[in-house]
C-alpha cells in the first residue's frame, strides 16, 4: 500500500524516525505521516493565507491528552513557514505565562523569541536573520538612493512608532545597524538581547542601548504586536504565534493569576476579531478541560465564554470550522492503520519494494497492541507509534529477524497523562515563601 506520493528526503526520514522513537513530535517532514484531519488543516491554511494577506486569526486547538495537538500545531507551523510567515512557538509552563508579575511573562516572550523560525531556519534561532534581512534591504535602498542608512531605517519604521513601545523598538533596530556598521559586537548582542526580552534592568538597557524601556511582564503582547508588524516590514508574510500546553494556565491555583492570564487571551481575541491587528495569527493548544471547565477553564471567564461557545447548530457530527475553537477529532483505528503504513513508507523512503513488513503485519501489530492496552492504542497513539518504530528499527538492522517472532516481545504501556496527577501541586506563589 503506497499512501503518499511526495518524495521523502533522507534528512526528513532521519528526523521523523528519531523523533517518533523518542516519543516526541517531529519538527520537520510532518506532511509524510500526517493522517486525516483534512478539514482542520484546510481551515488553518485559510487562516494562514488570511494572515499573509494582512489579516489576523486566532484558533484554540482543543484535543484530549495524546490526541495529537502538538503534532497538529507543528504541522500548521511548518505550513506557515512554507508560506513565508515567521513563526514563534513556546510551551506554557508554571514559569512561562501570558501574564505575570514575577518575570514569567517575560520568560515566555524570551522563549518565543529564541524559537523564532523562518522558512530557511525552521529550527528557530532566526531572530538575527529577520533583523538583518530588514536592515539589508534598507541598506540596499540607501545605496541605490545615496542616502544614509539610518534615515532609511527610520522612515521605514515610522509606522511602528504609532504602536506602544514602537519608538524604542525602532531605536534598537537602528542600534543593530550601527553595531554592524562599526563592528561593535557588544552592541549587536545587546540589541538582540533587548529584542529577545532578556533585559531585566532598565538601567542596563539605557546604558547599553540608550533606550528607556525594556520588554517586561507588562508589555509582552504589545511587543508581539510590534514584532508582527516588523516582520512584514522585513518582507515576510506575517507572524504566527504558537502557544502549546495552555493547560498550565488552567492549573494555576490562584484565581486572580488565572484570570489575568485569561484576560490577556481575551485581549488578543478581541484584537483579532475586531481587526485591530494585522499580519498576526495565534494558535493556542489546550485540553478540553482547559476550555470547558466552568470553574477554572476559559469558560470560567464569562467574556471569553460568550465568544468561544460552540456553534449551537454544529451538533450531531456537523462541524463548524469558522469559529475560533477547533476541536481535534479523536484518531480512529483506521487512522492509526494509515499512520503506521505511512511510517513504514517513510522507513522505505517511499519505495514500496523496500517495505520491512507486509500489510497484514500492520493489522497483527494493532491486534497485539489492542490486547495489551485496549482502545488506548489508537486513542493516545504515542506509545503505539514508539513501539512500532522500534520494531521497524530492529527489523531494519537485523535482516534475518522475522517480524512475527518479535511481535510477542513488543511491550507497550498505556500513555498516562502527567497533568492528571499533578493538578494543583505546583503553586509556586506559595513556594516562594519558603524560608
Amino acid at each position, binding site marked *: 500500500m503506497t499512501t503518499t506520493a511526495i518524495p521523502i528526503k533522507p534528512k526528513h526520514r532521519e528526523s521523523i524516525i528519531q523523533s517518533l*522513537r523518542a516519543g516526541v513530535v517531529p519538527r520537520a517532514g510532518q506532511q509524510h505521516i500526517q493522517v486525516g484531519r483534512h478539514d482542520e488543516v484546510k481551515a488553518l491554511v485559510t487562516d494562514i493565507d488570511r494572515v499573509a494577506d494582512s489579516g489576523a486569526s486566532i484558533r484554540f486547538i482543543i484535543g484530549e491528552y495524546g490526541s495529537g495537538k502538538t503534532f497538529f500545531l507543528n504541522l500548521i507551523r511548518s505550513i506557515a513557514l512554507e508560506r*513565508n510567515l515567521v513563526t514563534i512557538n513556546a510551551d506554557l*509552563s*508554571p*514559569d512561562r505565562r501570558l501574564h505575570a508579575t514575577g518575570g514569567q511573562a517575560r*520568560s515566555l516572550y524570551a522563549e518565543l523569541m529564541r524559537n523564532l523560525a*523562518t*522558512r*530557511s*531556519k525552521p529550527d528557530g*534561532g*532566526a531572530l*538575527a*536573520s529577520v533583523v*538583518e*534581512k*530588514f536592515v*539589508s*534591504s534598507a541598506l*540596499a535602498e540607501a*545605496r541605490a538612493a*545615496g542616502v*544614509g*542608512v539610518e534615515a532609511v531605517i527610520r522612515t521605514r519604521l515610522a509606522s511602528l*512608532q504609532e504602536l*506602544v513601545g514602537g*519608538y524604542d523598538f525602532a531605536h534598537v533596530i537602528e*542600534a543593530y545597524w550601527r553595531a*554592524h*556598521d*562599526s*563592528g*561593535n*559586537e*557588544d552592541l549587536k*548582542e*545587546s540589541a538582540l538581547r533587548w529584542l529577545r526580552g*532578556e533585559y531585566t534592568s532598565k*538601567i542596563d538597557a*539605557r*546604558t*547599553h*542601548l*540608550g*533606550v*528607556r524601556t525594556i520588554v517586561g511582564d507588562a508589555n509582552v503582547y504589545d511587543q508581539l504586536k510590534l514584532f508582527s508588524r516588523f516582520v512584514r516590514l522585513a*518582507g515576510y508574510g506575517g507572524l504566527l504565534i504558537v502557544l502549546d500546553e495552555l493547560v498550565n494556565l488552567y492549573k494555576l491555583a490562584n484565581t486572580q493569576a488565572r484570570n489575568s492570564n485569561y484576560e490577556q487571551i481575551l485581549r488578543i481575541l478581541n484584537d483579532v476579531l475586531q481587526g485591530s491587528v494585522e499580519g498576526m495569527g495565534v494558535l493556542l493548544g489546550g485540553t478540553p478541560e482547559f476550555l470547558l471547565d466552568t470553574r477554572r477553564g476559559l469558560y470560567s471567564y464569562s467574556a471569553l465564554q460568550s465568544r468561544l461557545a460552540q456553534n449551537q447548530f454544529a451538533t450531531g457530527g456537523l462541524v463548524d470550522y469558522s469559529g475560533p475553537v477547533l476541536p481535534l477529532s479523536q484518531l480512529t483505528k483506521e487512522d492509526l492503520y494509515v499512520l503506521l503504513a505511512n511510517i513504514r513508507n517513510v522507513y522505505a523512503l517511499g519505495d514500496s519494494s523496500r517495505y520491512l513488513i507486509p500489510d497484514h503485519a500492520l493489522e497483527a501489530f494493532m491486534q497485539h497492541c489492542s490486547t495489551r492496552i485496549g482502545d488506548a492504542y489508537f486513542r493516545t497513539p504515542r506509545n503505539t507509534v514508539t*513501539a512500532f518504530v522500534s*520494531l521497524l*528499527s*530492529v527489523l531494519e538492522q*537485523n535482516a534475518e*529477524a522475522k517480524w512475527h*517472532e*518479535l511481535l510477542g*516481545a*513488543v*511491550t507497550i504501556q498505556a500513555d498516562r497523562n502527567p497533568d492528571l*496527577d499533578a493538578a494543583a501541586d*505546583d503553586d509556586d506563589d506559595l513556594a516562594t515563601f519558603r524560608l
Partner: protein
Amino acid sequence: MTDLERILQASIARLRWTDKSRRRTETPSLPRWLAQGESANVHGYATGDFVYVGNGAGIEPSAIDPRLPVDAVHPNTSGEQVPYWPAYHSIPAECRAAYLQWLHGGRKDPYVAIGYVFVFFYGLERRVYELIARRGSSADEILAIAHEVARLLALHANRSGSFERYAESLLDLIEWIEPRAQSIPRETPHPGYGVPLRIAIALGELAVAAQPVPAALALDWLRSIWYLNTPATRCAREFELLFHIRYAKRFGQGLFLQPGRTFLDFTYQPASAALDLINVAHRNVPDVTQLARPRTKLTDLAQECTSALDAFSRFLGKNPDARESLAAFALLPDELVEGTHSADARLLAALVVSRLDAHGRAQLGAGELLQFVRIAKPEKIAKNEAMLLAQALEKLGYGIEPDVRLGGPTFESDGRVVVFRRLPDCPSTASDEYATATICMRLGTMVSAADDEVSEQERALLERHIAEALLLSAGERQRLGAHLAWLLETNPGTTGMKKRLAALSQDARHHIGRLLVSIATTDARVDPREMKILEKLYDLIGLDDSDLYRDVHAAQSADDEPLAIDILASSSRRFAIPPKPAPTPGLDMSRVRLRIAETREVSALLGSIFAEDEAPVRGASVAPQAGTIGSLDATHSELLRRLARRESWSRDEVERVTAELSLMTDGALEAINDYAYAAADEPLWEDDDPLTIHAHVARELLR
C-alpha cells in the same frame, strides 16, 4: 537504541540461543574464571586475566575452549567474519587466533575489531552477574572489573557507540552495587541516552536530603540533557566558568529539587545474549531527572551563557590563536574579566591605575593606549581599533572620552584622551538626550574658544543645566563631565563648524536656539550670567539677539507654545507616564517634559551637523564580476555565485565572504534563500554551521 529495541534484540538472541542449545548433546562443565593476575596458556598465547577458560558452548560465549582449533598463521584481525553476537566457540579458527593475539598483547590494541572486545566483555558481564549473586564476598574483584571496563571504554568509546552504551551501563550497574566504584573517573555525559545513573542517584539523594544541587553536578546534568552548541564547546573553559558564576548568582547555593512520586529503578540490559536482564530494585531514591521546571531553569541558564559567549566564540573561530589578545578580552562577558589570562588587559589596567587623579580621571596620550592594539595603518587609527580600546577599558571598569561608540571622533595617535573610572550605568551607547547634551556642551566650548569670556563657573553652570534639563542619569552626567574635560584639554577647532551652522535653514537654527533657551530656563528663571552665555551662543548659530529675547520671554511666560505641544503629542507614548514630582526644587517638570520631547526632534538635526566623519554608505569593496541574478542586487548575486562554488561552508568562511562583500551574513543568506524559493521553489542552503548548498538548486538559479 531505545530500551524496547534492546529487549527485542535480546529476545532475538534468546531465540537463536535456544535453537543452538537444543542441538547440544553433552552436558558442559562450567568454564573456569581466571581472576586478576592469573593467566592460562592456550595454543601458545597467554590469555591474561578476567576470562573464562573451558568448554562454554551453550553457556558462555566468551569462554575460551582450549580444545578448539586456532589458525595462528592467518589471524583475522579485521574481524570481518565475526557475527553480531559472536561467541568464541562459533567463530572461525582464524578469528580465534586474532582474539587470543589481542588478549596476549594485554588487550591494549586500540584498533582491535570491536567484535573481539565484545567477546571479552561478555565474560566480564557474566562474572559481574556471578558476583552479584554471591553478594558481599568479592567487592574488590568487582571494583577491579569496573576499572577494566573503564579502561576499555576510554580506548574504544569513540569507535563504537554500541560498545560505549553497554560499557557505560555495566559501570552504572557496578556503581549501584558497589558505591566505591563511583570514584572511577568517567566521561562527561552527552545528551541523547538519558541522564546517567550516577547523576540521577546523586540528584535524587540531594532532593531527599533537601540539599541544594552543586554547580558541577548541575552542569553534568545539563550536559546529559542539552546539546552544547558551538560557543559552549569552542570556549569550553569559559563556558564552564561562566555557568558556575551565573548558577551561583541565580540559585545561591544551588537549585533545590522536590522529590516526586516516582523512584529510580534500574534495568541492566546485558550485551551478552546468554544473560538475562537484571532489574535492580530502587533504593528509595526518587527520580528527579524528569522534573520539567529545574530542567528548564538549567537549559535557560545555559542558553544565556552561550549567547553571552557568542561574540567571543565567533572571534576565536576566526582567530584561533588570539585567545589571550586584547581583542578577545574585550568580547568576554563581564563575569569572566577578573580571571582573564590576557596579559595586555592587565598591563592596560596597570597603566590607567598609575595615572588616575583624585577624581578618578586620567589624562593620557592616545599613543600610550594604542600600543595595546595592533594598528593596520600606523598613520591613521581605524574606528574598530578605537572601539576595541573603549570596549576593553569598559571591561576593566573604565570609560574613555572620546568614545567612538557614542559618536566621538577616532583619536589621532598624538592626541589626548580622558580615561575615567566608570559608574555601572555609564552609557556605552548614546541616548538621544545624551547626544544632544554633548552637542550643547560643544557649542558652549566653542563660545569659549571664540572669545575667552565664558568663565569656568559659567561652564559648570551650563553643564549642570544641561544635565538637569535633559534628565541625564548619573552615569551619563559622569561621562558628560569627562567629555567636557576632554573638550577643554584638546580644544577641538571650530573650523568648518560655523560654516556648517550657517548653511542651516533659518528654521533649523531657530530650533537649536529654542532648545538652548529651554535648557537655560528649565528652572524657570534666567540670571544675567546665563543670558550672557546665550547671547554668545545665538551669535555663534547666526541668530539675532532679538530672537533670543523673544524666545526667552516665550519660554518663561507660556507653556502652550504650539511647537512644543505638537512635538509632545507626537511622541507622548514614550513618556506616557509623566515623571514623578520634581527631583530638584524649582524644576518645572512639565517644562522638563517639553524639553525632552523637543530634544528628540533637534538631536537628529544636530547630530547630522556635528558628525565628524559622516560615513557615506559603503559600497561593496569587491566589484561583482557579472550582472545581477533575477531580483537580487549586484552584491547578493555575487554572494550567490560564490556560495554556489562549494557544497559546504563553515560559518566562519561564509562570514568572511559576506564581510568582503559588505553584507550582513544572516540577512544576506535569508534574502538569497527567499529568492531561491521564489525562483526554484526550494532553498539554496540548509543548516547553519556548516552551511549546505544544494547544487541542483544552485545550477537552476545560475542558469
